[in-house]
C-alpha cells in the first residue's frame, strides 16, 4: 500500500528547489519589470511597440524555443556564457541559477503585465499635481507612482512566483533535468511519469503543484484587494 501523505526526500528536494528557483527569478525580475512597465505606460519613445512585443514574446513562443535561445546565448560556447565563465567563473548551464534565469525570462511578461495594468489605472494627474508641488521625477515616482502601483507590483510578484514554481519547457531545455540541481517540481513529475511504479510520486508532485498554484493565485488577489482598499479604491 503506497503512502499517499508523506513526502519522500527526493520530492522535498524538488519542492525546495522549485521554491528557491521561483524566488530568485522573481527577485531578478522585480526592478526591470517595474522600469519596463513604467516606460511602456508613462513614456512615448520610438521603438515602444517593439519593446512591448519583445517583453511579451515568452507568452507566445513555445518555452522550448526560449530554452534553446538561452542555450545559444548562455551556453558554454555562447557569447554571453563564455564571457560569464571567463570573467566571473559563473556557469549557468546545468545549474539552479540557470534554471532561475530561464524561469525569470518566462515569467517576466506576467510581472510586467500586472504592473502595467496597475499603472494604467493609477491616475497620471496625481503625478502632475505632485510636479506642480515641486516634486522631481524620482521623488514623484517614489512618493506617488510606486505606492499607487503597489497592488499591481505585489500581484505580479505572487503570480510570477506561482508560475515560476512550475516552469518546465525552458528549464529542461536550458539546464537539463538533474536531481538536486535543476530538477524542480514539474521536472520531477515528468521523471516520475517515465519510471515504472512512479504513480505515488506523480500524485504527490501533482497535488503539491496544484496546492501551491492555487494558494499563489488566491494570495495575489487577496493582497491586491487589501491594498486597493488601503489606497482608497473599492476592491
Amino acid at each position: 500500500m503506497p503512502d499517499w501523505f508523506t513526502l519522500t526526500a527526493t520530492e522535498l528536494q524538488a519542492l525546495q528547489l522549485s521554491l528557491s528557483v521561483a524566488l530568485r527569478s522573481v527577485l531578478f525580475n522585480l526592478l526591470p519589470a517595474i522600469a519596463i512597465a513604467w516606460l511602456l505606460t508613462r513614456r512615448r519613445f520610438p521603438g515602444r511597440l517593439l519593446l512591448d512585443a519583445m517583453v511579451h514574446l515568452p507568452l507566445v513562443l513555445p518555452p522550448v524555443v526560449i530554452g534553446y535561445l538561452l542555450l545559444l546565448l548562455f551556453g558554454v560556447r555562447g557569447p554571453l556564457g563564455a564571457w560569464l565563465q571567463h570573467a566571473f567563473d559563473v556557469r549557468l548551464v546545468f545549474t539552479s541559477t540557470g534554471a532561475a534565469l530561464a524561469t525569470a525570462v518566462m515569467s517576466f511578461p506576467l510581472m510586467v503585465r500586472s504592473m502595467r495594468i496597475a499603472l494604467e489605472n493609477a491616475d497620471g494627474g496625481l503625478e502632475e499635481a505632485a510636479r506642480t508641488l515641486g516634486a522631481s521625477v524620482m521623488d514623484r515616482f517614489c512618493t506617488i507612482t510606486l505606492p499607487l502601483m503597489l497592488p499591481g507590483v505585489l500581484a505580479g510578484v505572487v503570480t510570477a512566483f506561482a508560475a515560476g514554481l512550475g516552469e518546465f519547457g525552458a528549464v529542461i531545455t536550458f539546464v537539463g533535468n538533474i536531481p538536486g540541481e535543476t530538477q524542480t517540481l514539474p521536472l520531477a513529475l515528468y521523471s516520475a511519469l517515465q519510471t515504472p511504479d512512479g504513480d505515488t510520486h506523480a500524485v504527490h508532485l501533482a497535488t503539491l503543484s496544484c496546492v501551491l498554484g492555487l494558494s499563489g493565485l488566491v494570495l495575489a488577489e487577496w493582497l491586491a484587494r487589501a491594498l486597493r482598499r488601503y489606497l482608497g479604491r473599492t476592491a
Partner: protein
Amino acid sequence: MLTVQLRKRRSEFSLDLQFSVPESGVVALFGASGCGKSTTANLIAGLITPDSGFIQLGDEVLLDTAQNINQPAEQRRIGYVFQDARLFPHYTVEGNLRYGLQRARQQPVIKFDAVVTLLGLEPLLQRRPQQLSGGEKQRVALGRALLAQPRLLLLDEPLASLDQPRREEVLPYLERVRDQLKIPMVYISHQFEEVLRLATHVVLMQQGRTLAQGDLAAMSLEPALRGLIGAEALGAVVDGKVQEIDEYSRLARVALGNGHVSVDANQLQCGQRVRLQLLARDLILALSPPQGLSVRNMLQGVITRLTPDDRHATLVTVDVGGVMLIARITTSSADEMKLHDGLCIWILVKAVTLRGHVFASGDTRSV
C-alpha cells in the same frame, strides 16, 4: 505684471493667446467650455510646452521660447488647484497639505497652522481624501497648493465639479485667500457668477483666442461679453461704498458715481466696499426726471455709446459721473427717444444685485 503669450497648435484646435495683467489681484480667464482654458492652465503651469511662448511674472521670466528658457513645472512655484482636486489617496489630509510644504525651496512664508485656520481644515486633518465631500476636497487642494509657497495661484475651474450649495461653501474661502494672502491668482472659469465674485481683471477667451481684456468693470461693458453670457446676464459691475444703512427698511445706501442706489442691507456695514451688478435689462431710460413711480433708484448720466445688440434691442452705455452703466432697450424705443451720444438722460434702476465685497489691493496682509 503677469505677461502671458502662448501659441500651441494641435490637430483639433489652435491656441493663440496673450494677456498682460497687474500682479496683485485675481485675473479671470473666462470663456465657454472647450475654448482652451485648461490647455492654457497646463501651459502656464509648465505641464505642457507651447510651440512658442513667453511668460513673465514680476521680474522673473518663466518661459521664453525665443531665449530657450523653460523652467520645469516643479520649479515654477505655481500653485495649481485642479478641477478634480487630485488629492493623493494614500496620504491623509495632513499628508497632502504637507506634501508641497516639505518640498518648498525657501523658508515658508505661508505657515501650516495659518492655512489650516484660514480654510477651516482642522477637523479634516486626519481624514483620508476619499472620506471628504467635494467641497472639502477643493479646500484641501487649495491649502495644499498654498503651502507649496507659490508665487502664483492657478485655479482651473475649482468649483465646476460641485453643485450650487457646495460652491457656496467654497467661494468664501477663495475670497479669504484673495483678501488675506498676497498671492496673484489666475482663476479659470466658464461661470460668470464666479468671475463676478472673485475677479479684479478679466480676459475673455473664445476658441483659443483673446477677445478682450481689462478690469472687471470695463469688461462688464464689453460687447464681446454679450456673446459669451447672453443678453439676460449682461450688466455693469461697479464697486461702491456703503454710505448709510436704514435700520427700519434694512436698505443700504451705496454711493455710485454722482448718485446712489439702495440694496438689501443684509450683513452689510457702513463704510464697507461692495461690488454691485446692475443688469442691463433692469435699467429704464427716461429723457426727463419721471414722477409718481415706485422705482426708488434714479441716476442721471450722459450717453457715451449706442451699440445695436440684435434685431430688436440696442445697448446703451451711460456715464453716471465717472461710473459706466449699460442698459438694454428695444431699438424702437431708442429711435422714438432719439437717443444719441452725449445726450443727458435719467436712469431708473429696477433692481441692484449685490455681488460680494470688493477686493482692496491696498489692504493685503500676509498670514
